């Protein structure tokens, strides 16, 4: 099954990369950019008997490895099968 994980910097936690990207976009002449947050997008192909099982596994993976709860929020979607 296809698991898509979205990891984003916690609200309130500084996001230098986002700020730099914002600046770069402005200097490229893009107007009306209010905010930019840069996070990670992780696509996993895993075997799981059921969607529920896949979600179970994805949650564990995020909590243990894929995201750092101190500074990051995560969200995931399970597709297919």
């Amino acid at each position, binding site marked *: 099954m296809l698991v898509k994980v979205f990891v984003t910097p916690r609200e309130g*936690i*500084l996001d*230098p*990369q986002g700020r*730099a990207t914002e600046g770069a976009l402005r200097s490229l002449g893009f107007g009306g950019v209010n905010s930019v947050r840069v996070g*990670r997008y992780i696509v996993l192909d895993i075997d799981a008997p059921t969607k529920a099982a896949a979600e179970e596994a994805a949650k564990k993976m995020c909590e243990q*490895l*894929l995201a*750092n709860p*101190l*500074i990051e929020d995560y969200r995931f979607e399970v597709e297919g099968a």
Partner: protein
Amino acid sequence: MKWGVVSFPGSLDDADALYALREVMGQDATRLWHKDERLMGAQCIILPGGFSYGDYLRCGAIARFSPIMKSIARFAADGGLVIGTCNGFQILCEARLLPGVLVRNRSLSFICDRVIVRVENARTPFTCATRAGDLLRLPIKHGEGRYVAPEDEIRQIEERGQVLLRYVDASGAETDEANPNGSMHAIAGIANERFNVFGLMPHPEHAVEKMLVGGDDGLKLFHSVIESVR
């Protein structure tokens, strides 16, 4: 005394730490392999700098799960001395053996330079050979050394005197320019609540010989540990 230096895949300064301890300070130091769980009777364990597992995903996030880290967590829980420099610091944070986390430098680029840090708390096993207020000139080399933690946590860390080293300028003053990576409160090194686990971004193991670019101010930190143990 007996030291252990951990080698993870991608560790770089492990060889340098071993060289500093053995050849320069005449200490008894062994290399600890990440797949191993034995700590070989080490009295102080060093998690070295480098790019464990390529620093992929997040610095230290993968190394944290190595077999040896279980033993080190137990060792620390029993009050054993643990020092993490640079990547080692990042690993200790990821492993929650130290509060907070290290993120991309403010400049977003890697910085290799010599900085000045001020000793904030000299009543710890890692700083007892120094005096509070002492200035140390130490090398840094990292892309992700910006220390961050929730404000309330930082406040507690400060109150308990867990901040051991702070970036300052040559006059000992805290200035924005003197803070190379934008760390909160200019924090360069912190200890845990029990003061037996110490993480710092500067590299004392690269500051043990006058002849080399790093100078030798790092010796003071190693000597502290040696004194505290005897």
